[in-house]
């Protein structure tokens, strides 16, 4: 093989590898971004505590999976049972946060609710720290191992599992929001709360449900990030939270398809920037995008003018 060809081949391999990694990470960001965008769509609040729900999900996952593995259940059972239970837990947690910290401020200024959200974020993060400790907690290593090679890129079974779960959840959410009656009611409430009350929709219940759905998705993302990187930490929610928020803004805040798209783009950019520019500055790129979008295109890719999938 000529050296030049070999070199080009290496480039293709590297590119493919980054593509696979980017899809994996982007899907996870998309899941978290949906929670931001749906809550914003329905009550115009940037829910700063959302990243902490993601972290709480990661922790609940490690606790449940460790216990289930120690009981000798097969990995598939461990993962699916832990996912379902942890998602339920996070949904309840987010509903409690909403009831406690946001609902009493429903008629206050948006700034008050925003500050309340910031406070909730600090409270939840410290709660995690106090109950779970300040050190990393490892996910059981023997969950999903191995992988295979395609065109020189290594795809781990873990990545397959993560992308599979992500796709399942995204499709499920789309069906819920755009095909079911409760999804219609969510969109109606986001569009006009007075009118939705006049047709008999209980907007408090719909808002609560929106928080629950967003939290369940973030929880799944937290578990998958924990499995992917092998551990969780009490402050793991902050950076992915801000990146997912950037993704929601990039996609057009309030727009569901936009959040999915934005998550994928942010994930790709991060992975490719880490691979081709500098891995030490990988976190910076998401924020550069955020600033750029806010400066040049504040409505995002799917914002205002492309209405179809706004909640």
């Amino acid at each position, binding site marked *: 093989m000529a050296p030049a060809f070999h070199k080009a081949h290496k480039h293709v391999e590297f590119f493919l590898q980054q593509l696979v990694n980017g899809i994996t990470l982007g899907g996870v960001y998309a899941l978290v971004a949906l929670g931001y965008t749906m809550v914003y769509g329905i009550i115009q609040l940037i829910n700063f505590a959302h990243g902490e729900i993601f972290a709480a999900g990661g922790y609940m996952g490690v606790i449940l999976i460790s216990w289930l593995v120690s009981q000798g259940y097969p990995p598939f059972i461990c993962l699916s049972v832990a996912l379902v239970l942890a998602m339920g837990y996070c949904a309840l947690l987010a509903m409690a946060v909403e009831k406690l910290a946001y609902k009493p401020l429903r008629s206050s200024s948006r700034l008050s609710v925003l500050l309340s959200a910031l406070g909730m974020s600090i409270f939840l993060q410290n709660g995690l720290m106090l109950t779970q400790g300040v050190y990393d907690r490892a996910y059981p290593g023997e969950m999903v191992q191995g992988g295979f090679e395609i065109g020189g890129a290594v795809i781990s079974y873990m990545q397959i599992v993560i992308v599979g779960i992500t796709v399942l959840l995204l499709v499920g959410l789309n069906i819920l929001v755009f095909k079911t009656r409760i999804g219609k009611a969510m*969109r*109606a409430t986001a569009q006009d709360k007075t009118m939705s009350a*006049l047709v008999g929709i209980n907007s408090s219940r719909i808002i609560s449900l929106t928080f629950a759905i967003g939290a369940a998705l973030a929880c799944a993302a937290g578990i998958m990030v924990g499995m992917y990187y092998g551990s969780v930490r009490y402050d793991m929610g902050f950076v992915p939270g801000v990146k997912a928020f950037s993704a929601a803004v990039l996609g057009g805040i309030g727009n569901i398809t936009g959040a999915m798209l934005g998550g994928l783009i942010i994930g790709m950019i991060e992975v490719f920037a880490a691979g081709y520019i500098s891995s030490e500055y990988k976190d910076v790129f998401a924020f550069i995008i955020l600033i750029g979008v806010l400066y040049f295109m504040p409505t995002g890719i799917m914002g205002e003018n492309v209405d179809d999938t706004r909640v």
Partner: protein
Amino acid sequence: MTQQPILELKNVSAAYGRINAIKDISLKVYPGEVVSIIGANGAGKSTTLMSISCVLPITGGEIYYDGERIDGTPADLLPSRGLCQVPEGRRIFPRLTVEENLDMGAFFRKDKAGIEHDMNRVFQLFPILLERRRQHGGTLSGGEQQMLAMGRALMSRPRLLLLDEPSLGLAPLIVQQIFRIIREINEADGVTVVLVEQNANLALQASTRGYVLETGNVIMEDEAKALLANPDIRKAYLGE
């Protein structure tokens, strides 16, 4: 009339911002009637309807629907009891399709067959909506939106329908069509209608009785025919 009113307001006061307040309003609506509330801009007509729908908390008085006191109940519980409003400006859900908007009108109902039947009925009343059923509500013209808003209200099978300015901003031909349908749902379906209008002439002609509202007070109530013949009313509201 000796029967029980379907709707009764006793000395109701409420405020919507600073200018659109109502003070001590009392009115009665009997089953099967079309009652119009006429008055100038800012007289408190919409405030009255929003108070009846419990969207706006009242500051004094009592509201009875079907003999039961309803003021203070959550607004979203009223449609299932047959009290329904088509608010000012129609308030179509702009990014739901026509079909979805209609389905939301029947949100509290679980009878699939009945909902489908009623949707077909709405499409019969307003054939244009059938043509546009997959279009977003926000893309409809003003007249089509008014039809959709009324169709959406009918989807809840109302017994008392509150209509706020159904003629506002519409072409005369469309207005005629809307009023023909108001008469039809009143006569054929027995729906009681409360009609708020600036176009007093039109409203009174379609009504059995009317109330005249001025700066938040009821200044006159009478049979619609009598109001139409009243020289003061003709001068103040009928443009003579």
